[in-house]
């Protein structure tokens, strides 16, 4: 999803090698095996060790470089994996194509720990197939030293209709759905709208903002903020957290009209060789302490109540990562929009960029 894919790719080789080594030493476990298939650098090796010690199951992990790879492998017959970690869009396709095993996540013992907003997800509304793993938000961050009066409103208005001093000093993500969603939230329009007039409103809003935008880009958002090249950057929260490591004054905003969040989930492919261990693992991952250990490694939020106290301090104390309770009602889940709506969105985007 939104994590740095090239970084993951780079770490892929190292990751695989480390885990191959780990699995070689742990092949003596008696309780059978568990094979995970995940992004590289996206699962804590310590956590794997902990699971092995507590359950006696031997765990191996493989890495994919893109969700297309993951999907292709599953469509070609499962690949022998027990637990996979797709994003929301891919999850929807997998459910629709009947690729996942019914593991009854919502009936699991630890499902009660899942935050209310994550108890349902587009494509798997009743949480039959998937449990939340990591999630993040798309808001914006700003440097108080560079904005008028050192403060910006917690609203998309602050970047869609910027103060004169900020014109030309704003960077937007170059991500069609995130930008479209933000516009829709601000205007109070459904992000899955099929109404041409509403789409036109979003286009007008974005066109009006465009002259004030310095650039649209997904790359180097962290450096750009740290180097002070822009005062405001529409950004993913994980990136904002890393900006704050270098410049603690930076503020990450959850705009009040709505802040999209994306989710990566855990699911089990049909015909998984170790179904029982897979269920055990998914349930185990919903224990607050374990979810926190996963977050400490990835730097992204988990969806488990009570995991906050186990987080590393720098994550716990950063509202960009550990979303404050009062912002929960600002979060907006992914929705699978109709073809017509997606077509409108795409035409708005091309018109914006031409």
């Amino acid at each position, binding site marked *: 999803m939104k994590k740095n894919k090239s970084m993951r790719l780079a770490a892929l080789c190292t990751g695989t090698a480390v885990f191959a080594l780990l699995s070689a030493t742990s092949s003596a476990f008696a309780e059978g095996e568990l094979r995970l298939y995940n992004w590289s650098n996206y699962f804590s090796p310590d956590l794997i060790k902990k699971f092995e010690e507590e359950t006696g199951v031997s765990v191996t992990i493989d890495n994919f470089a893109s969700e297309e790879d993951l999907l292709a492998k599953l469509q070609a017959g499962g690949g022998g994996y027990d637990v996979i970690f797709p994003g929301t869009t891919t999850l929807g*396709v997998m459910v629709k194509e009947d690729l996942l095993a019914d593991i009854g996540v919502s009936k699991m013992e630890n499902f009660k720990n899942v935050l209310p907003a994550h108890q349902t997800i587009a494509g798997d509304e009743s949480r039959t197939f998937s449990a939340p793993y990591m999630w993040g938000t798309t808001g914006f961050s700003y440097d108080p030293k560079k904005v008028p009066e050192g403060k910006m409103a917690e609203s998309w208005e602050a970047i869609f209709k910027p103060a004169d001093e900020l014109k*030309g000093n704003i960077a937007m993500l*170059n*991500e*069609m759905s995130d930008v479209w969603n933000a516009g829709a939230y601000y205007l109070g329009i459904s992000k899955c709208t099929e109404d*041409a*007039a509403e*789409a*036109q409103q979003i*286009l007008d809003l974005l066109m009006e903002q*465009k002259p004030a*935008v*310095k*650039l*649209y*880009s997904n790359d180097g958002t962290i450096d750009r903020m740290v*180097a*002070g*090249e822009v005062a405001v950057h529409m950004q993913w929260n994980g990136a904002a957290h890393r900006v704050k490591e270098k410049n603690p004054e930076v503020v990450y905003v959850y705009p009040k009209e709505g802040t999209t969040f994306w989710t990566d989930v855990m699911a089990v492919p049909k015909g998984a060789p170790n179904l029982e261990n897979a269920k055990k693992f998914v349930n185990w991952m919903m224990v607050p302490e374990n979810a926190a250990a996963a977050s400490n490694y990835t730097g992204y939020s988990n969806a488990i109540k009570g995991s906050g106290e186990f987080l590393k301090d720098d994550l716990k104390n950063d509202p960009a990562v550990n979303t404050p309770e009062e912002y929960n009602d600002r979060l907006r889940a992914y929705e699978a929009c109709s*073809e017509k709506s*997606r*077509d*409108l969105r*795409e*035409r*708005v*985007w*091309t*018109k914006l*960029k*031409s």
Partner: protein
Amino acid sequence: MTPARRRTFFNFWLIGPAALAIIIFMVIPLAMMAWISIQSRSYGGGVHWGELSAEAWLRFLFERNLDDSLSWSVTYTVIIIRSIWLSLITTVLSLLVGFPTAFFMATRDRKWRTLLVFMVTLPFWTNLLVRNYAWILILRDYGTANGLLMWLGITDQPLPLLHNQFAVAVGLTYSFLPFMVLPIYSSLEKLDLRLVEAGFDLYASRWQVLRNIIIPLAIPGIIAGSILVFIPALGSYVTPELLGGGKTLMIGNLIGHQFGAARNWPFGAALGLFLLALVLLAMTVYALRGRERGGKP
């Protein structure tokens, strides 16, 4: 077999592998592209095979308004014209920088020439992506260029050098300059300096010598260089993406977007074919010019 027939037979087998490679790796994919461009699109990516539709081609000039009625649209025409315009600017800039460079190189000693040619090709040892990122560092607000300008006191505010068409033109010119320098150099290297001397003996001014003797003799190199710069510039993707700040699309980016985020394969394929047609047009002009000049392009 007669010797002649044997030769034909033999030639057939010699040409066979190359012809096969061209058919498999060029003719068939192009035919697939053409076929895909007239299918109706599937919104998850891909197409509905067999469902014919002219929608992709209509998009070039007409736009389905957001309410689905057709009307004239300049959305894509603007991008296409911008691509051609930026490529032309790139070609002219490359020529302005490249010609003097090539002339300088061609008039050095032989041993120096080899070294200079080597130095012109040196940037190719670095990946295009890396070179474009280097330009980001140079052109950014507090980068090298602005730092120098402000240090010299020419300006006290950083100039907006990055994320606009200027940056794209600079980046493209830098990327493709060697393609201009080398053909001109090879034309000028063969230049008979006695012709220049003869010109001066006949009281021609420096300008007249340049205009009436050197440039006409360098024309083949200039044309070849211009074609070599213009064509890759037209399809460039990385430079407008990185240096244009995602605000100035060129055809390459538009194609990338259609196959990526937009998942509109038919339109992507149609754009790809259109780009190919533009390139062929440029090549044809070149070939025709060559024929006019007596078969020596």
